[in-house]
């Protein structure tokens, strides 16, 4: 396959769900253009390559590597280093590689609690011997090694230098194609260095057709509790929506169909902590606690409203936990409680 002069393409899958791979196929028949323009050098999901193939390539052999998934264990980390070395352009593809995404919600708990949930206390798991995988297992033939599980999920750029980031869970097909088309046609990309490409520069609200009326709310509703009024801002109806604190690029897909934005495109430029930014925005939407209320009553009144927002950490940081300011919850050493989870 080598030696035909085509640029080399790779895609790899670390701690993620696989949706990013599907998203690439969602560009439709344009995938044929990708196949025509590139020589696939490594893409375990789509073509039969082994890690030793990648190891045998000279450094910088791969021209474009899309890396999806966060860094959950030692294998993910090893592959991140390997693909960084072998790739000219390394792209953190999708929310997991960008900022941790759903796997990084586990940063709110402990590895021990995760193992209990995955292997022991789970109604769909039958494990009468209560076996839990160990990094090293002794068998008569010798020692077996499996990857070591880390104490938290990290984003790709917290492990290796990343040239570009394509955000989204998963990235929208038209955005993926915009980037691939630019690479194929030789259009110069912006200067590398964790640069966001394939996304907008404004908030999701700017792309959202729902109307805002500067209304305030007195409680939050979960999506199943009310049917939203069509055409009106969801947040102003009490339905949690991350739009104000989330980067555009998806064309406001979720709010358009009555589902609040969950924040998968990550924070806007210059914002370090997406959840904190959204929290600040919520303070302006919640209308309870005004100058008409007596001072001592203010806090309980506001508390009552804020308590209707279930699981604030998991909601505000659904996609950005690994890249948040605090990165993971604090767990008292020696306690086997499930971390900070309420």
């Amino acid at each position, binding site marked *: 396959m080598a030696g035909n002069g085509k640029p080399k393409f790779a895609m790899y899958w670390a701690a993620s769900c696989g949706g990013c791979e599907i998203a690439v196929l969602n560009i439709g028949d344009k995938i044929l253009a990708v196949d025509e323009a590139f020589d696939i050098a490594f893409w375990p999901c789509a073509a039969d390559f082994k890690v030793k193939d990648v190891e045998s390539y000279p450094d910088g052999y791969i021209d474009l590597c899309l890396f999806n998934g966060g860094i959950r264990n030692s294998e993910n980390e090893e592959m991140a280093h390997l693909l960084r070395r072998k790739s000219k352009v390394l792209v953190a593809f999708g929310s997991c590689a960008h900022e941790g995404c759903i796997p990084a919600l586990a940063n709110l708990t402990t590895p021990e609690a995760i193992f209990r949930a995955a292997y022991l206390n789970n109604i769909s798991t039958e494990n009468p011997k209560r076996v839990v995988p160990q990094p090293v297992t002794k068998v008569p033939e010798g020692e077996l090694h499996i990857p070591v599980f880390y104490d938290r999920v990290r984003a790709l750029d917290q492990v290796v230098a990343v040239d570009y980031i394509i955000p989204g869970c998963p990235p929208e097909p038209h955005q993926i194609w915009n980037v691939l088309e630019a690479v194929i046609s030789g259009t110069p990309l912006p200067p590398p260095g964790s640069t966001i490409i394939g996304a907008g520069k404004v908030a999701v609200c700017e792309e959202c057709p729902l109307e805002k009326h500067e209304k305030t709310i007195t409680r939050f509703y979960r999506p199943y509790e009310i049917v939203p009024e069509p055409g009106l801002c969801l947040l102003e109806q009490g339905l949690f929506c991350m739009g104000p604190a989330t980067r555009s690029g998806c064309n406001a897909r979720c709010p358009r169909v009555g589902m609040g934005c969950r924040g998968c495109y990550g924070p806007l430029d210059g914002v370090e902590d997406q959840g904190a930014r959204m929290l*600040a925005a919520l303070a302006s939407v919640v209308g309870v606690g005004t100058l008409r209320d007596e001072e001592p009553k203010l806090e309980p009144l506001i508390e009552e409203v804020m308590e209707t927002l279930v699981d604030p950490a998991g909601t505000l940081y659904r996609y950005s936990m690994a890249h948040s*300011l605090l990165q993971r919850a604090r767990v008292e050493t020696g306690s086997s409680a499930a971390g900070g989870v309420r």
Partner: protein
Amino acid sequence: MSATYEPVIVGFLCNWCSYRAADLAGTARLHYAPNMRPIRVMCSGRVEPDLVLKAFREGADGVLIAGCHPGECHYIEGNLKALRRYVLLKQLIRQWGIEPERLQLVWASASEGTVLAAAVNRMTEQLRALGPLRWQQTVLGGDGRPVAAAVPKAEAMATTMPEEA
């Protein structure tokens, strides 16, 4: 806990009331705990949640937000915004495993130097009882760079685990 532990409180004081309260505490020569590092901001409503979280990450044991009494805000209701953020932030940090006492809010007008001093004293004692936070060292591991290949407790588990207590 080491006897030398002195809690570090990052205090965000609003320009119009609480910073002046701190000034007054100084000119009145009030004796109070020297643990607060005051930062003057124009309004308690300017204290974005990022600032609070960043203070925790960078080594603060506690964060105190101080502003004008409701109804007395120079910007009419900046302090009410601060209060709403504070309430939600308190719920949030609990999930991160940070004790709610580590984040406090106090209303102190320009004439209430004693109120501010008392709040700092009280908070210092509470933090002393809680012990240090030291986010970088205890949670992120070491010098704040991502933890390199930290072996989780899972490895220390026996191959078979007991029933959860």
